[in-house]
């Protein structure tokens, strides 16, 4: 961050270059498109085989569950929700950072987002795909749930759905979220796909990219419509960052279970989502910039900015934990008090303290610039954060369910092997999709990166 003195005018801090290495436009296109056009590296093949094997394991576990019954999972009459809902909330949470980066930061004109917004948005869509398995899969009869959860006119006197139920709001919230982020992501892709199409040689690749590019000619009118559409969609998906996870938090906040029925849940979940989302973006970007050597486009400054946000949201989540305890004590409700005492010192204290350390203590390391800019350190911290956030959902779902109103029904819950297979399977799906994305679509938004490079911006402002 160098300082330039001008004659008394407002001091203009010089922003660090977002694209380093003196790249020209041609360099940008070549750097981003070469991984698409050449045979994938051997490392890519290893990664995709591992992740698809893990995915296969998850699918088998899903098959067994749907074939034989939910009995294969660890859930029972006292804890009727377990690893299934934990994974659902975890994956939906991870998605939110992508939308924030691509939509909210776009509206805030934060140019540093251009390097990472495409892959972050892709991560959102893949995370939501992983999450979408659970709303249907965790029901007892998915072959009926898939259409009965939708308010369609029917011959049962038109028996509609229960609009008071948060699970139904989930159906609307998550499907809206998925469609808007997919459309937003795809529209952002069109100019780049057109570039790839023009460079494509192999007839089949050319045909596919041609169809995908929707006849983009790069003419003035196209760009005009593109900018307007992109701005509109950014505006539309910005509130989604807040609304979707608020509705997911309503799944718990609307119930009367002690520990769930608190008004802190919506902001608490949204911050938690952004927190775990940014951690996952950091994890993926650290790997992607190594494998596809995009160090010049996803610079240390990008990662540092994200680490700052991660630490900030981490402390906010810590604040939310403290607020929960205070409100439980302040409310004087014996059930609430018991739940939080039991959460910190009961049979699940191990999960609770894992969560506290991973979410609030470990990110504090980012106070030091040295660690904020140290790649291996940030990778480790981001993985810990996501582990912590998985345990946060575990603590929320399980500690309130396993000991609520009637002591005679108290029971300890542990996910079964099938649960663990499905959880790992969802990570398998996520990484498989991400690797395929990196193989077939440009990882960095070339059009946007070019627009913020100094060459394009002659007058240097």
């Amino acid at each position, binding site marked *: 961050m160098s300082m330039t003195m001008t004659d008394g005018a407002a001091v203009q801090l010089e922003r660090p270059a977002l694209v380093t290495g003196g790249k020209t436009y041609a360099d940008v296109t070549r750097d981003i498109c070469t991984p698409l056009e050449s045979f994938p590296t051997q490392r890519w093949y290893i990664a995709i085989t591992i992740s698809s094997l893990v995915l296969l394991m998850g699918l088998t576990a899903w098959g067994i569950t749907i074939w034989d019954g939910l009995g294969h999972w660890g859930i029972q009459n006292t804890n009727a929700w377990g690893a299934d809902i934990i994974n659902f909330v975890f994956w939906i949470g991870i998605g939110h950072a992508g939308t924030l980066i691509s939509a909210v930061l776009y509206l805030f004109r934060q140019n540093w987002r251009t390097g990472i917004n495409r892959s972050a948005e892709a991560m959102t869509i893949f995370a939501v795909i992983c999450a979408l398995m659970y709303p249907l899969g965790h029901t007892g009869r998915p072959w009926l749930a898939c259409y009965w959860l939708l308010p369609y006119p029917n011959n049962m006197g038109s028996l509609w759905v229960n609009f008071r139920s948060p699970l139904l709001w989930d159906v609307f919230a998550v499907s809206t979220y998925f469609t808007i982020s997919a459309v937003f992501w795809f529209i952002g892709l069109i100019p780049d796909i057109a570039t790839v199409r023009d460079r494509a040689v192999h007839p089949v690749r050319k045909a596919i990219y041609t169809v995908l590019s929707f006849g983009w000619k790069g003419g003035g009118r196209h760009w005009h419509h593109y900018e307007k559409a992109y701005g509109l969609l950014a505006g539309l998906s910005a509130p989604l960052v807040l609304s979707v996870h608020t509705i997911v938090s309503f799944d718990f906040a609307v*119930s009367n279970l002690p520990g769930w029925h608190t008004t802190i849940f919506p902001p608490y979940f949204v911050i938690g989502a952004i927190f775990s989302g940014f951690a996952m973006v950091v994890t993926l970007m650290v790997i992607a910039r190594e494998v596809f050597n995009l160090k010049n486009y996803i610079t240390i400054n990008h990662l540092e900015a994200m680490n700052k946000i991660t630490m900030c949201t981490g402390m906010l989540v810590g604040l939310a934990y403290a607020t929960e305890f205070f409100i439980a004590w302040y409310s004087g409700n014996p059930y609430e008090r018991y739940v939080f005492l039991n959460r910190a010192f009961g049979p699940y204290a191990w999960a609770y303290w894992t969560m506290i350390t991973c979410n609030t203590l470990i990110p504090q390391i980012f106070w030091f610039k040295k660690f904020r800019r140290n790649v291996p350190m940030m990778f480790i911290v981001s993985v810990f954060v996501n582990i912590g956030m998985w345990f946060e959902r575990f603590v929320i779902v399980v500690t309130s369910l396993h000991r609520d109103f009637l002591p*005679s029904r108290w029971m300890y819950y542990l996910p079964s092997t099938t649960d663990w297979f499905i959880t790992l399977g969802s990570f398998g799906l996520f990484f498989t999709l991400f690797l395929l994305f990196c193989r077939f679509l440009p990882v960095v938004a070339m059009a946007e990166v070019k627009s913020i490079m100094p060459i394009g911006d002659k007058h240097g402002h």
Partner: protein
Amino acid sequence: MSHEHNENKPVTNQRFWMTLDQKEAPEAFAKTIPGEFTSSPIREGLEKDGLDRRDFLKVMGASAMMASLAGCTRRPVHKIVPYVTNPEEIIPGVPNFYASACPQTGYGLVLRTREGRPIKVDGNSDHPMNRGGLGARGQAAVHDLYDPDRLRAPKIGGVDSDWKTFDAAVGQALASSKGSTYLLTSSILSPTTLALINKYNVKHVMVDSIAMNNVLDGQAQSYGSRVFPRFRLDRADVIVSIGADFLGTWGSVVEYEGQFSAARKLNEKKNTLNKLFVFEGEMSLTGQNADERTAVHPADQMILGLGLAAEVARLTGHSSAELSGFSAAMAAEKTGVPAEKIHAAAEALAKAKGRSLVLADGKGKDGVALQVLANFMNSSLGNEGETVDASIAPSNQFRGSNAELVKLIAAMNAGTVKTLIIQGFNPVYVLPEKMGFKAALAKVANVVYFASHANETSAVAKFVAAESHSFEDWSDVNPQKDLYSVVQPTIQPLWKTKSLLGALLDWAPAVGVKAPANTNDAVKATFQELTKKHGVSQKFQDFWDDLLMSGVFAPGAKARDNKASARSFKGEALKAAVAVAKTLPAKAPFSLLLTSSIAMADGSQANNALLQELPDPVSKNVWGNYLAVSSIDAKAKGWEEGDVLAVEADGNRFELPLYIQPGMKAGVVAAHLGYGRVFNGRNGNGVGVRLANFLAGDQTLVSDVKITKTGAKSPVACTQRHHSLEGRDIIFDTTLEEYKKNPSAGVEHSDNEVPPTIWSEHEYLGYKWGMVIDLNACTGCSACVIACSVENNVPAVGKDQVLKGREMHWLRLDRYYSGEAENPETTSQAMLCQHCDNAPCETVCPVLATVHSSEGLNQMIYNRCVGTKYCSNNCPYKVRRFNWYNNNGDMNSLMEHPLALSKNPEVTLRSRGVMEKCTFCVQRIEYGKSEAKTAGRRANDEDVKTACQEACAADAIVFGDVNNPESKVSKLKNSPRGFLSLNEVNARPAVTYLTKVRNRAPEKTEKA
């Protein structure tokens, strides 16, 4: 509406505690909380018994094609098959009711049949003994009838044959062994069968699986007549039980429970309670219902009895020389029972002369002696003739004699027995090895064994006769003097089976006995004689039709209520008893007490999955027996929940997981008989461990056993994993004194008025169904749990699913401890769907599968439910049950015959992935309303009874229309003792509980 009621609620009431450690050392306990988890589900392996290759491919196919389109199959062609000639009493869709009786206990039954098959059995409310009540085992009898593992044809030498050859062979065997034929059965109540057996002039030996020889021998020594008297608990204001579990498995339980609970009811007119003192070693169901319970080592019961007898003799002026050496102080010092407890019992008995009762059950060699003491006390208190009736209507239910059995075995060894017919008794399983029955059996040429399943005894019997169920053939019962009922068949025998009476009638010609052709004629002949004997003026055919309709013929009915003749107590019996007391063996560090479980009793219904899964009323454990140890021993020896202990005594050894039972006497361990059976049964075969070898004659106490920790761990499947209230407003109890001062004692500190709500309230113009459960009348016997499961097709799910917390009972009895750790008091709360007006489950179901009806019911629509399970999470009472697997077999293939016949056609069978819960027996409500509408009136208490209400012998459950002011439930709803469970959650349940009122002095420390 004041909102600060939260603040002024007193500090949580420390009387209730979570576990035993919390009681003694709360601070130490707080440290242990993090480590404590009561029962964690076993880590789930991916496959039940290995996933072989073809399954793997099948599964892979399914997972790829995840959401199959359910609606695309064309509708299958349905057939309607009418009768050829319609039997006139059967209208498809309309149930018929037949009065019958239970051959083992003699209680009156009413069988509900649909399309010619019984689907539900209940007590006959006109029967003077059980007055409409029926025990858990009786309720489950319907599922024994349709058990697919039953023997389907007689066997000769292990090979299936038919009745013609079987009768010929047995007839020939009987003819050849005239004079040396023996018949070994359990107590037979049927006068027809007994008369026929006399004609056969065979030597008839009766043995009871749950032996009552001590009582009979005690009566013989004390009064000269070997009879099991009728104990009239309804007339007893004070009851003292020394080891006699009369509410659990001792004696005519359902009769006693009805009478006991009637005295526990409280209302404006009646504010008195009977008082129950219990002195026992293990924790029994009677002990749980005691007002004053004291733990005493079973070996010390005799000394305690002598101490009490001495005190009672002194107070009633009957002190005799033999008892001079004994007193309460001496007994207290020897047994460790506080002297004031013995004094209190003695004074209470003395104050209630002629209106009290002493019951005893000696576990060791003191069996008969303790009975003599009890008889002495009853005589000196003037109870003889009042509450102990041995002349008007003594019981015929228990006529077994152990001595006769020993003589039979001797005869068998001597070779004088050529043919032995065994029925209603499984000697090879029930009798201990050392009695040598199995060896003796080998010496008998022809063994004819009547059995419903191929079991331990049928394996060594040459002739195995497939026995009919009692619902399949005619018979009759005479449980008490001058009280007769008919056992009516309600179904054609499912398989080629016969009852003992039927077989004896068929073999009569071969033995030259003149007997009627079939069971119906035989029973009719008996009743013809009875009508002559008792001077019935009615024409026999009319009498017979009335009898079949009412189910009871009680010529002695009027006499049952007046005073019986008081027999005089023989002094020398007391001298003999005192002499026996001196010869008792010294107490060893550990003694094993063999108890009978309420679900399994003698193990004959082991293959009944409902009974195997019935949570034991005391320990709530299911599927197998366990070693109950006292909390003191567990702490001293460092035993934890689930440890497997090995128990050895004179050459016999068994291993069982332990269960820490608060309230047991230190030095005593207890385990249930009736388990560990080996027979061709899919449910009960090999469940638990057989302990019969530890029995010695009638003694169920093994005085000296060695207990070692095997180090192995095996979790006990338990349905209630937590026993404390945590100081929450779930149930309330109080004492009689406080109740008299203020009828809503115990309840008033919980704000009983209903908190405000933001939801618009339902308004009920027509019916508003509600229920009241009297915690004071409920003894916790769990018959309602089985009745509910039979009525509503609720499946049993097996031990591993119960271990994972997935039991399916719609109604459960939560048992909460209170008071001190070593000797806790217990309250049983029947918890079922509360049908809340402000139901938390209705707001969260996304597909409207559970909605509120205009009559106050929380409806559960199985075909609409997709199984998100949010309703179960949001229910504060956790009364919803989920079908994790297909519990009713694969839905599109037929259920294995004849299981389908046991299902109630009025209730939908739930498939996998569907939530289910108590529906207040909505099929009965709809049927009752339909009947009332046809009769043009509003449904009343008689039209609609839920299955649990009908099964309850204690009449603790009252159900009805709250909007109808004359209905019993609306009167009880505003009883001062009434409270709503978890009221501050404001779900506004439709079930009101009435406080448990204990008849003892209020605890000093208890903060009101």
